[in-house]
């Protein structure tokens, strides 16, 4: 869902102005929708349609869509999410927690005809907006569910080859989707050889803590830094060598001809050292304390 923290429009100085006029969008506002969880803005940004969430006088870009190029992913971090296919032994079932604009799910099902994706999104209005403005249509291979990702995972009887976690809610991730217990639950719903992919927006999440949490649950955690975002891919079993990963990415690339070539993404892989930070748990996960988190990540840079 969210990643890009950049402000893309300027709110009025007075709260009253915000209430009545809302932020000014350079290329035009297409639709504004209030939901139980978010204020959702659908705007035009150059060639793109954008979905933004407005929280605390800031706008967070959830997704970008180029209607003229439906097989192109404008948000760079979402391209890394697609590399998860190279980690799974037999990628056929994907669970995406956090639909947002839904373009990653559509990209995957468009390119891989044998793939089925289940996307779980908390906010029904986000699903409606993705359907209306981002060309996200449910199908036999793209199932969209409204609900809490963790509750869905707890109740799900299915197993998945890849679980993508990208559930941002404005400024923060709901804490129960960041903890050791959550990732153990996700691991239990993975088929053998499966992988969990976590988008970490460094200015929002305590990056080190998220990596520590994934490392506490999985044998291996790889990270990919792209356009100010970090994507972590976690999996069990023997560590994949770089040659193995690139070979697998190349094989998938020649089979499915992805717009964003998987081997190039695979080459940006980093294997972070074992983190000494305290993993986040259901008991202790202070993810809302944004200011402290931002200060922490600023020091890390």
């Amino acid at each position, binding site marked *: 869902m969210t990643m890009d923290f950049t402000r893309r429009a300027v709110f009025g100085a007075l709260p009253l102005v915000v209430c009545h006029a809302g932020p000014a969008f350079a290329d035009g506002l297409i639709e504004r929708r209030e939901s*139980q969880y978010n204020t959702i803005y659908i705007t035009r940004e150059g060639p793109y349609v954008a979905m933004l969430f407005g929280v605390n006088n800031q706008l967070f870009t959830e997704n970008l869509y180029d209607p003229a190029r439906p097989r192109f992913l404008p948000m760079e971090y979402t391209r890394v999410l697609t590399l998860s296919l190279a980690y799974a032994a037999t990628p056929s079932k994907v669970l995406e927690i956090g639909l947002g604009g839904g373009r990653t799910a559509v990209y995957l099902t468009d390119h891989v005809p044998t793939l089925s994706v289940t996307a779980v999104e*908390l906010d029904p209005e986000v699903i409606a907006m993705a359907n209306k403005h981002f060309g996200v249509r449910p199908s036999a291979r793209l199932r969209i569910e409204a*609900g*809490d990702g*963790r*509750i869905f995972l*707890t109740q799900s009887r299915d197993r998945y080859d890849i679980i993508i976690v990208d559930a941002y809610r404005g400024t923060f991730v*709901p*804490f*129960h989707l960041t*903890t*050791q*217990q*959550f990732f*153990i*639950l996700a691991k239990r719903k993975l088929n053998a050889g499966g992988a969990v992919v976590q988008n970490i927006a460094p200015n929002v999440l305590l990056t080190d803590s998220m990596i520590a949490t994934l490392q506490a649950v999985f044998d291996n955690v790889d990270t990919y830094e792209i356009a100010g975002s970090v994507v972590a891919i976690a999996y069990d079993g023997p560590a994949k060598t770089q040659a193995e990963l690139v070979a697998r990415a190349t094989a998938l690339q020649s089979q499915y001809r992805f717009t964003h070539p998987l081997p190039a993404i695979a080459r940006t892989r980093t294997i972070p050292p074992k983190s000494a930070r305290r993993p986040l*748990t*259901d*008991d*202790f996960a*202070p993810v809302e*304390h944004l200011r*402290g988190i931002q200060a922490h990540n600023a020091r890390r840079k």
Partner: protein
Amino acid sequence: MIPRKSILILVYGFLIGIAVMGLQMATSRPLTPHFGSDIFVWSSLISVTMLAMMVGYYVGGRVADAAPRSEVLGVCVLAAAAYLAVVPALLQQEFIADPDPFFPGLKRSTLAWISASVPSLPLGAIIASMLLVFVPFTLLSFFSPFCIRLLLADAEHGGRIAGSVYSITTFGNIIGVLGTSLWLMTFMGTREITYLYAAWLALCGVGLVVLRAKATDDPR
């Protein structure tokens, strides 16, 4: 009753006020993994808190009339503290080897069991909230009517006394909400916070017992 005791009782009211709202903030956390982050989780917790206050004010007022002594109130606060000391065991964390220090035998999260057994998430959240906070919050709600009964010397000053009691406990509530959410929760887990407030309340309970304050018209 001498003023020193009156002041001390109000100080305990302030401290208990901190604990009640601090515990409410902390209790929202263990509910979320099992019942989601929807608004109904908060509404369940708030309504159960209000229910506990409703019952606590009513019953507490009658107990205060029957035995207007701070020892009795202190024992009620101690009972709330004892219940809260057991609550972290109910929050037993799923999946990870993190046994409760006092109840290492418990392996299954009670809240996970409720979530799996009750078909409706809002109903499950209400039941879980009842289990976690109803008993201690009811006992702690005895404080206000009890305190008014202890401090009331004559009807002429009844309004002032009742107002002071509600004001000081509500001030404690504010400190509890802000202090817990903005400070304690940044470095302490829910279980530690619950143990902290259980110990805090135990000290208040002991203090009220030791104080031995009684209403001016109490014959004993």
